[in-house]
């Protein structure tokens, strides 16, 4: 039976050189392929770093603000020359406070009262916000009129930029916003310690302002907070209810199939389409107010629902059937088995999904633009029905401002937004680590 094989096996071939199967070439290809993979991964991660670095390096200075500390004389001559404040309290509201501040600074710098050009330059070094600051001081305590107090005042945005080194001083004087005299004064004040950078609490509490040094995200934070609250209150119960029905009760029929396909598609609908829906249905048809965080919250709720439903269904699916069987076996009804046993076990997964959905909603801009949240709102909204803006929308509005100081503000606002997102995501991760069970 070896007849067939033996002739071949019998011949002892001289040892031939190894057949070239291109092993070198193939290994080189293998290394190349691997290198492509590493390069792609590295590219992605490097760009993440570049993006974060570019935002942080532009924005961290926004958390410091240049301020000038100096003695300010609340002169009766300027504030209330006719001494009529007792009869007419309105007088104190409309007095010319910027002049008070300007005179104080001029005195510190030794600029004469008759040097009008000099005085104007001095005035430009202070922010327009001093009007409100000094007015509030005087209105709160009219007794300080006629006295001299040491006050810390906001420097103007241009001086702030110059002091932070963001203005190129090699450019000719005419082409930049601060002149040489102001720079000299600025250095002089800085040397004496009067002008210094302070922590900028204003960026967290102030409302919109056309002056970069006085602009803040306070109103936007409130608006975003209202919206997140509305999304949480509406989307979580509705999403959980919908997923319980679809996962545990729904019979397999056309209708539930339709709902299922629907939810998957809604998750992929561009967010701007939700904005159009909100504008047409909530604002135009139902007559809800434009720019209100309530409407924004509703739109974001609809947008977040599919995310929450998908996460909840996955969490419910992960609870093993034995739990349900045990509860049913002890005589619980189906509803009791689900609400008393399955749902609590699925809760960590549901909450994780919800937080991630909320984080997504917090960063969403496009639908809010359409329902009119691009608004200049300087006052805090007291209810969700008042006009307000949202954090990402504020970023969008500042990004469109031309002034240099607004770039810094924008990056600062982005840092705040990213911090919130990091906080939420870390919370979600911790929740998952702490409570997640593997069955």
């Amino acid at each position, binding site marked *: 039976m070896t007849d067939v094989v033996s002739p071949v096996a019998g011949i002892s071939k001289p040892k031939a050189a190894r057949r070239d199967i291109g092993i070198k070439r193939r290994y080189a290809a293998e290394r190349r392929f691997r290198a492509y993979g590493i390069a792609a991964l590295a590219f*992605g991660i490097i760009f993440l770093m570049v993006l974060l670095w570019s935002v942080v390096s532009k924005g961290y200075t926004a958390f410091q603000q240049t301020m000038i500390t100096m003695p300010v004389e609340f002169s009766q001559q300027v504030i209330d020359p006719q001494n009529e404040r007792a009869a007419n309290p309105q007088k104190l509201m409309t007095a010319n406070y910027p002049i008070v501040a300007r005179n104080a600074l001029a005195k510190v710098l030794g600029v004469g009262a008759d040097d009008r050009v000099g005085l104007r330059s001095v005035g430009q070094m202070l922010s327009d916000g001093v009007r409100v600051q000094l007015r509030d001081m005087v209105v709160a305590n009219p007794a300080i009129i006629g006295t001299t107090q040491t006050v810390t005042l906001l420097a103007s945005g241009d001086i702030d930029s110059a002091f932070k080194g963001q203005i190129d001083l090699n450019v000719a004087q005419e082409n930049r916003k601060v002149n040489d005299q102001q720079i000299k004064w600025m250095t002089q004040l800085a040397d004496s310690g009067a002008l210094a950078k302070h922590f900028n609490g204003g960026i967290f509490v102030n409302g919109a302002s056309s002056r970069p040094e006085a602009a803040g995200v306070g109103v936007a934070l409130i608006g975003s907070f209202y919206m997140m609250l509305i999304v949480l209150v509406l989307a979580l119960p509705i999403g959980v209810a919908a997923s319980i029905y679809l996962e545990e009760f729904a019979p397999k029929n056309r209708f539930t199939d339709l709902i299922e396909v629907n939810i998957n598609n809604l998750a992929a609908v561009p967010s701007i389409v939700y904005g159009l829906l909100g504008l047409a249905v909530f604002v135009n048809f139902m007559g809800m107010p434009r720019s209100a965080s309530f409407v924004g919250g509703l739109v974001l709720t*609809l947008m977040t629902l599919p995310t929450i439903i998908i996460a909840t269904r996955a969490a419910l699916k992960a609870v093993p059937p034995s739990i349900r069987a045990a509860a049913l076996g002890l005589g619980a009804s189906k509803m009791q088995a689900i609400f008393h046993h399955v749902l609590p076990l699925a809760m960590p997964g549901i909450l994780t999904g919800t937080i991630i959905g909320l984080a997504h909603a917090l960063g969403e801009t496009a639908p809010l633009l359409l329902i009119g949240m691009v608004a200049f709102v300087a006052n805090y909204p007291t209810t969700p029905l008042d006009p307000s803006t949202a954090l990402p929308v504020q970023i969008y509005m500042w990004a469109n401002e031309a002034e240099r100081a607004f770039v810094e503000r924008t990056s600062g606002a982005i840092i705040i937004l990213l911090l919130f997102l990091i906080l939420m995501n870390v919370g979600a991760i911790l929740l998952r680590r702490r409570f997640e069970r593997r069955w």
Partner: protein
Amino acid sequence: MNTSLILLILAFVGLVGYFAGGRHAMALVGGLSSKLHSRPGYYGSFVAIWAIVPAVVILFVWLVASPIYISSSIRGAFPEDVKAQSEAEQGLAYGMISSIARGMNALTNEEIERIGSNPVDLRAALATKGVPLAGDPKPYMVKAAGDLNVMTDISRITMTIVVLAASLAGAFLAYRQIAPRFRARNRVEKAILVSLVVASSIAILTTVGIVLSMLTEATHFFTHIPAWEFFFGTVWDPRFAAAGSGGSEGQFGLIPLLLGTLYIGFVAMLFAVPIGLFSAIYMSEYASPKVRSVAKPLLEVLAGIPTIVYGFFALTTVGPFLRDLSSQLNGLVTGNYSNFIQAQSVLTAGFVMGIMLIPYVSSLSDDIITAVPRALRDGSLGLGATRSETIKKVVLPAALPGIVGALLMTASRAVGETMIVVLAAGVAARMQINPFEPMTTVTVKIVNQLTGDLEFTSPQTLVAFALGITLFVITLCLNIYALYIVRKYREQYE
């Protein structure tokens, strides 16, 4: 009584009903809960549900219906010459009447009598109360405003009575039904089930809302501009809607916007697909678990960053960088230091959008590559193929349909992306092929047309809805097809 107070009262009635119901059930069986059909809490819930749900339903129906009824009856009583005016003018008149009505509520009775019906005085008086009017009110408006206030008050009082009565009646009837053998649990569970069904149909309602709202507004638009001019027009020049003039007709051609959208999306995919795909392959086939556990979350951070941040990054970093780079390159080659890449360009927007899309491509295709059965890889490796050969010749072909599905989903995201293109792509609607020049997209134009003052009758505003439905249909088709492919592919290996 205002709505929130009514809701508060309803909640209180419900709470009382809950405890009363539970107690009543226990009392009926002398404290032996084992004799009850259901746990006492279910009896309480049964009462609470009957106390709250019907009343709330009535409340909301009333709140929606009564303003519509009141406004139609006020408009019906307009003088004949006002009725002859256009719909928009009547709307303005009605708006004025409702602000007069609002202002009159703020005035005291003496003030109203003193003013009488002198329109100028009325306007001044209302202004002091913080209700500015657009013009001097006409006498019929003042009368209508009075009627409006009366009707609103009557409606409000009736509503309060009806709702509270419904709540009490519901609670009472439910309370009466309680008996030891009464199947309260089954009733309550039925109610919960109904609420679950309602919650899950909200998804359907959202879709219906999207489609209906956009279709109706788009149909309005197509009465101004013929559909074929919109879909096949090559010039986008909407002009401005002058307030009140009804808007001069501009040109609304979709083609330049669509081309811009597709071009920018294409450039984005050009960056995202190779990078995302190679990262996915590396992470699923080569990387050690340790590298994977670091790299995968890092890449996913890219997906968590809001698109407005990408837009800002494109606007202030990438755009100027590309512009300066091009001027330096141009200078080195030709000696002429002028930039050939604009700061806002297809390339800038596409590139940044590509970065944003990397994690989508990589995590979707990662899942799909991991789903390819181990046996296929082992077979190939066992025959002597290197890893890369296995991936190229076995794994990728097997995963191809799934990957195509994933890419389609990513493409639909690129088409619908808004903030990056709003900030980085430019606003000029042009048809050209140079990637270094700005182009604009459908989403940018939706935002442009809808920010600022709106007038829901002008084609300049309504065109946004026509653009929106186009966008919706495109992304829907891409997604349905992608889901279909992915599902079919998954079945293949299960």
